[in-house]
C-alpha cells in the first residue's frame, strides 16, 4: 500500500498545475454546495421550528374530525391529559382549545384565533415562551391575561397592560364576551399566528366558549425525538377511540413532512449538478493521467503488479486528488458557512417584514445553519464522484496489455 501511495502522490505532483486546477474546481464545488446547503438548512430550520416545534410537537391527540373540519364541538375530555401524563415516555403534554373571536380594542377590532393554552405546560412543550418580544407569556396560575401576535397587536393598536374585548359565538349558540389584559406580545414566525393569533389560558377560553373541561388537542413531547412511532403506538393502544385520535407529527401534518423531504430533494439536485460538472473534470484528468503513462503502467504490469493493485493505484491517486480538493473546499466552504451562520444574508433593506414561505415568515436576515450530515454528504459526494469517475480509467489501466503498452510510443 505504501508503495501505491508513494507512486500515486508523486504522480499527482508530476502535473502540478493540472492537479491543482482539478482540485480547485472540485473545491469550488464543495464550497458552493456547503454554502447552498447551509442557506437552505437555515431556511428549513426556521420552517421546521414554526411548522413542527411550535405547532405539532412529537405527538398530537385530538378528536378525529377536528383537524379537518375545525368544528368547535369536536372536543376531547380534559381528563385524558392525566392519562397521557401517566404514559411512560411522556416528557410533557400541553392541552389546547381554539376558537375564533372578534377581538376589539377601544376603536378597532379584528378577527382573531384564540388559542387557549395551559400557561404552565405550554412552554414545556413548545418554544412559544422564547418567542415573546414584549412583556411575558401568560403567568401560570392566573387568568384574564392575553398574549397577542405582533401584527394583531399592531392592528388593534394595543400594548402591554391594555384591555381587549373578545366577542364570539359560544358552543351553545349564545354570544359570549370576555375582557382580557395584554400581558405579552409574541413574534412566532407563523404568518397566521403573528397576524391573528392570541393566547389566553385554557380555563378562560373554556368559559368563553362554554366548553367546560373540554380540549381540542393535546401536544406531547416524548423522551426520544428520533423514535416517536413506538410511543405513539403505545399511546394509541391506551387511549384511542372513536372520539380520540393519536397521531405523530408527520401523520398530523403530512405537508410538513413533505416539506422536510424537499430539503433532501433540493440538496441532491445541487450536489448532482455541481458534482456532475466537477466529475467530468476528474474523469478527464484521470484519463490523461492514465493515457500519458501507458508505457509506464505497462512496465509495472510486466514486472508483476496485479490488475487489482493497478486499479488500486489509479483509485488511490484520485482519492488523493479528492482529499486535496476536500481540504481546499472545506477551508473555502467553512469560510462561507461561517459568514452565513454569523452574519447571514440581510434582506431587511428590501423586505423588512421578512419573507414568507408556506405560511412561515422568515426573518429578513436569513442565517445559515450547518448540519454535519450536510457537510459529510458533500465530502462523501466528492469521494464518490472521484472514485466513480476514475473507475473507468482505472479499469483501462488494469486491462492494459503489457506487450502492447511497451510497444507504445
Amino acid at each position, binding site marked *: 500500500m*505504501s*508503495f501505491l501511495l*508513494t*507512486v500515486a502522490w*508523486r*504522480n499527482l505532483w*508530476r502535473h502540478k498545475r493540472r492537479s491543482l486546477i482539478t482540485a480547485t474546481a472540485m473545491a469550488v464545488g464543495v464550497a458552493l454546495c456547503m454554502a447552498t446547503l447551509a442557506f437552505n438548512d437555515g431556511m428549513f430550520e426556521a420552517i421546521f421550528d414554526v411548522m413542527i416545534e411550535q405547532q405539532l410537537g412529537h405527538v398530537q391527540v385530538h378528536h378525529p374530525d377536528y383537524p379537518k373540519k375545525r368544528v368547535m364541538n369536536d372536543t376531547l375530555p380534559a381528563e385524558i391529559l392525566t392519562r397521557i401524563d401517566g404514559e411512560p415516555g411522556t416528557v410533557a403534554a400541553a392541552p389546547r382549545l381554539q376558537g375564533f373571536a372578534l377581538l376589539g380594542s377601544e376603536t378597532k377590532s379584528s378577527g382573531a384565533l384564540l388559542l387557549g393554552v395551559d400557561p404552565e405546560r405550554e412552554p414545556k412543550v413548545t418554544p412559544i415562551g422564547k418567542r415573546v418580544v414584549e412583556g411575558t407569556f401568560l403567568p401560570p396560575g392566573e387568568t384574564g391575561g392575553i398574549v397577542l401576535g405582533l401584527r394583531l397587536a399592531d392592528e388593534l393598536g394595543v400594548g402591554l397592560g391594555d384591555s381587549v374585548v373578545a366577542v364570539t359565538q359560544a358552543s351553545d349558540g349564545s354570544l359570549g364576551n370576555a375582557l382580557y389584559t395584554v400581558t405579552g406580545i409574541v413574534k412566532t414566525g407563523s404568518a397566521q399566528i403573528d397576524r391573528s393569533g392570541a393566547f389566553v389560558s385554557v380555563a378562560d377560553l373554556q368559559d368563553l366558549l362554554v366548553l367546560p373541561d373540554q380540549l381540542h388537542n393535546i401536544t406531547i413531547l416524548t423522551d426520544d425525538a428520533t423514535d416517536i412511532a413506538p410511543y405513539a403506538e403505545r399511546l394509541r393502544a391506551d387511549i384511542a377511540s372513536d372520539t380520540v385520535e393519536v397521531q405523530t407529527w408527520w401523520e398530523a401534518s403530512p405537508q410538513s413532512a413533505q416539506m422536510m423531504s424537499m430539503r433532501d430533494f433540493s440538496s441532491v439536485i445541487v450536489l448532482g449538478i455541481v458534482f456532475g460538472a466537477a466529475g467530468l473534470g476528474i474523469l478527464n484528468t484521470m484519463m490523461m493521467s492514465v493515457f500519458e503513462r501507458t*508505457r*509506464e503502467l505497462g*512496465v*509495472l*504490469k*510486466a*514486472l*508483476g*503488479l*496485479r*490488475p*487489482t*493493485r493497478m486499479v488500486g493505484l489509479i483509485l488511490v491517486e484520485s482519492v488523493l486528488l479528492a482529499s486535496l480538493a476536500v481540504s481546499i473546499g472545506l477551508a473555502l466552504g467553512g469560510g462561507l458557512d461561517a459568514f452565513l451562520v454569523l452574519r447571514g444574508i440581510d434582506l431587511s433593506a428590501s423586505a423588512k417584514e421578512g419573507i414568507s414561505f408556506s405560511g412561515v415568515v422568515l426573518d429578513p436576515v436569513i442565517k445559515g445553519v450547518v448540519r454535519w450530515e450536510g457537510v459529510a454528504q458533500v465530502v462523501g459526494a466528492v469521494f464518490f464522484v472521484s472514485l466513480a469517475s476514475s473507475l473507468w480509467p482505472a479499469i483501462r489501466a488494469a486491462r492494459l*496489455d*503489457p*506487450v502492447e503498452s*511497451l510497444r507504445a510510443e
Partner: protein
Amino acid sequence: MSIVHVSDLHREYQQGAVTVKALRGVDLTIEPGEFTALMGPSGSGKTTLLNMIGALDRPTSGKLLVDGKDLASLSSSQLSDLRLHRLGFIFQSYNLIPVLSALENAEFVLQLQGMARDERRKRVRETLAQVGLAGMEDRRPGELSGGQQQRVAVARAIAGKPALVLADEPTANLDSATAQGLIELMEKLNHEHGITFLFATHDPRVMEAAHRVVRMVDGKVAEDLRK
C-alpha cells in the same frame, strides 16, 4: 528441472485481413544457470518469444512451461505473481518509473513481494552496489545517464532473486564501452549468483559472452549452439 520448456509454440497476430505468423513452432529448453542469447534477423520472433516466456502474452498454440508451471493454466493474477516472484525483466529502453528514485525503482518489486522494510532496503543497497551504483540511490531516472539507468533496471530485475531474467536488447541504446560494462556485469551475476539469463540481441559482444546462442529465423529455431 529445466526452467523454461517450450514445444511447438505458435503465435499469430491478426493485422487487419492478414495473419502475421510471428512464431511457427518453436522448441526450446533452458536449464537453470544458463546464459543464453537469442539472435536472428529483425522480425524473426525474438521479442515475441521473450514475451511468451515472460508471461506477458499468451501463445496461439503450443506448450509453454516456465519454472515448472504450465502458463496456459494460470489466471492473469497468477501470471502477475509469477512475474513478480520468479522473473526479472530488462527492457531495451530501461522503462524506469520516472517519479521514483533509483533506490525506489529497484525496491518496489521487493515491496510488492511483501518484504519487510529493513531487509528490503539492505538488499536493494547491496544490489545497487553490485551493479556499481553505490551513492546514486536517491537520483531519479532523469538525473542518470542511459547506462546508469540500465543498471538500475538490472538491479530491479535481479533484486527479487528471480529464477530467470529476460532481457530484450538490453544494450541497444548504449554506447560500446557502456554496453561492454553491462555485459560483464550480467556475466558476473550469472557466474557468482547463478542467475539464469535469456537475451534477445543483435549485439555481437553479447553473443560472444553467451554460453549458448539460439538463432531464430522466420519464427523458428534454426540453430542452437552451445559453447
